[in-house]
């Protein structure tokens, strides 16, 4: 293999595939990045068998070929090279690669390309295309709600539910649930549970549109020159639609930024998950927290409250995550009673955040 590529492009592409390189070394070959030079493209690919990322960039290919490079080293080398063309020349007999740029020359031992797992075959059963910025926003709004606890694998993913008129994305860790709806005309209806990591990585790559295809075992994200394939999480996602209360006793509307800053400030004294209390009385909204041994915090903010007065407590982090997902000017908090789930939403439609309270004894 002999190829010539711009340092900045090569470094950027390496950064993208790096995310799929395995940290665990049960299979040493997976600590490498597969590099392929064909016609006028340099394609990089990495996988940890959960997620696979492939990306390609234009390059001058003088001799076609494939090699596997140690991921950490190649990323580090290219990142530190001067901004100029980088020349890659492999020596198949000695299993080495020479990297040359201006005055620098590196000789790197390579791994055997035949040992590297093939990039997964991608077959479409159902696909949909949406604006990347809509996708990114949806991921940002729901991803924090996915569980980090591996003991219930299903909840570590987000449910993508494709209906005729819209796409729903749902994530929950069983203490809060984020539901995002995006209008979209789709030809078929289907659903899949995608590991949150794949969504996260896909949202970090810049492009205009994203095409997602779902097959029974995998999801594929097409982002311009980059393709991400993720396995799906098997199992039945909990039925969430029935969880949303239909009638509310109290509705609180307040400026989202003001509420968020107040909650952030007060939450400084909600250490060790001690509850953050929300109190409405005669049109005022009070937020307070107290941690034994440390102290307490109180804040009152302007809000429009309708219905019964209420005192309810939430985990501060869950409330902040919900508020961060709200894009409109106002945040609306709908409550039934101190032991029923509350719903947080914005005056923009499409995002609902269900939040379980903390029971105070």
């Amino acid at each position, binding site marked *: 293999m002999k190829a010539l590529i711009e340092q900045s492009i090569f470094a950027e592409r390496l950064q993208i595939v790096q995310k799929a390189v395995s940290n665990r070394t049960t299979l040493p070959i997976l600590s490498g990045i597969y590099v392929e030079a064909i016609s006028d493209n340099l394609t990089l690919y990495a996988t940890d068998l959960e997620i696979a990322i492939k990306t390609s960039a234009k390059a001058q290919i003088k001799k076609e070929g494939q090699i596997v490079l140690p991921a950490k080293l190649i990323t580090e080398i290219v990142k530190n090279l001067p901004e100029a063309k980088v020349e890659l020349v492999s020596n198949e007999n000695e299993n080495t690669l020479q990297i040359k740029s201006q005055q620098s020359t590196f000789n790197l031992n390579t791994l055997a390309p035949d040992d590297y797992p093939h990039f997964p075959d991608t077959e479409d059963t159902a696909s949909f295309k949406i604006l990347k910025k809509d996708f990114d926003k949806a991921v940002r709004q729901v991803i924090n709600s996915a*569980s980090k606890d591996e*003991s219930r694998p299903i909840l570590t993913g987000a449910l993508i539910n494709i209906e005729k008129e819209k796409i729903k994305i749902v994530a929950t860790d069983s*203490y809060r649930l984020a539901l995002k709806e995006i209008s979209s005309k789709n030809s078929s209806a289907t659903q899949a549970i995608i590991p949150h990591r794949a969504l996260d990585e896909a949202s970090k790559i810049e492009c205009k549109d994203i095409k997602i295809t779902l097959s029974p075992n995998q999801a594929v994200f097409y982002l311009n020159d980059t393709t991400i394939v993720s396995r799906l999480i098997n199992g039945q996602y909990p039925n969430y639609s029935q969880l949303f209360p239909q009638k509310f006793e109290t509705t609180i509307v307040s400026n989202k930024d003001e509420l968020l800053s107040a909650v952030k400030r007060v939450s400084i004294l909600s250490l060790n998950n001690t509850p953050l209390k929300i109190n409405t009385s005669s049109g005022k909204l009070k937020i307070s927290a107290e941690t034994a041994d440390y102290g307490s915090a109180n804040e009152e903010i302007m809000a429009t409250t309708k219905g019964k007065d209420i005192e309810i407590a939430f985990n501060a982090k869950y409330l902040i995550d919900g508020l961060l997902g709200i894009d409109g000017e106002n945040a609306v908090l709908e409550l039934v009673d101190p032991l029923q789930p509350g719903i947080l939403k914005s005056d923009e439609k499409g995002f609902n955040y269900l939040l379980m309270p903390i029971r105070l004894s």
Partner: protein
Amino acid sequence: MTNKFSSLISHPSSQRTILHLDMDSYFASIEQRDISVYKGKPLLVTHGWHPNRNLGIVMAASYEARPFGIKAGTPIFQAKKLCPKANYVKGNFEKYLHNTRKIVGISRNYSDLVEVYSIDELFLDITNSSHLFGSPVNLAKRFFDEIKDKLGLSCSIGIGPNKLVAKMAGEFNKPRGITYISADELPEAFAPLPAKDLLGVGYRMKKHLRALGIETVGQLQNLSPEYLKKRWGVMGVVLHNASLGIDNSPLIPSHQGPGPKSFGHSSALGAKGIKDLDVVKKVLLGLTEGVCRRMRSDNYLAKTITLRMGLAGLMYFSRARSLANATDITSKIYKTALDLMDGQEELARQHGVSLIAISAGNLKKASDGRQLDIFGNERLSDIDKAVDRVKNRYGEKAIIKASLLGFNKRYQGASKVEIAEVSKGHSSFCNRWV
């Protein structure tokens, strides 16, 4: 509200006088006091005693048993060989805790800065109170006599300018001794001591020191701190300071009675271990039930679950996992414990499990609120509470999990695991402060 920073009141800076109290052969002394036939005889306190049972270790040995070479930690089968005539009694932790609470109560007559260090050890900062009694030693004598008079128990007391010296001093004169080492007497007072007796020197450090030809603390004092640091890192610095009697650790007073740090139960399953994992899991379920029941009755929720397992003749390991939210729900904690066992099953099957222990830590008060769950964990919590009420009223065996039904009988012969006993055990009592 309690103030976390009040502990700084007793912080180093100026000269301090710290008293360390260590009860003499605590559990055994309490039993000898309460049951007169045991007086003056070798008595061993064990975790659940059964006449034919050789499992487990001695938790406390009376002074009469010590000449036979038995001390806390001696396996029971070995103790039986060393002293066939010894008496055995099953530990009663509620009783010991009750006594500790009384000792703590008495200690408050001598200082308001009391740190409960373990079930039978206290630290008192007597910097500002010793002059009321004339001298630190006079205070110690009064304290010693009051415990003797009111509880009929003896103790050993060490006094020093910091916690380390106080604790070391207490070891000088055991049992029934009072030792005072003032700052002026340091570091000479430590010099003749064997290096192995220095606080922080464990089995391995002892070997390392011996390899360097260091037998006494005095020899250790002569080594340069740079050398010790280079050789053992942070531990080297600790060792250097300890040899000179330097210790800046603050006394952490427990104002309204300290809370527990964790709840834990464990069961020894015999030296050969149990290879049938179903049995091990059932024992674990019994232990988990016991832990959760105690947490519920004391109104605590735990966030971190630790599983400790011994593989016969191979090793001990422990693994922990933190939950997203603190809980006292038995089924949730049991599931976490099983997850922690995952991946070790093959080894466990091969070698046999000789010890299984579960502990629930990172505690918070249930009164601080309980995070509700979307999918209705509340129901599980209600079930646990209902079961607790039945047990409180009709006894531990009135209601048990179906999977443990008949388990007791079926495995009694094979492994001598008694679930009822296991779930009442309090083997990690040290974690549970007064």
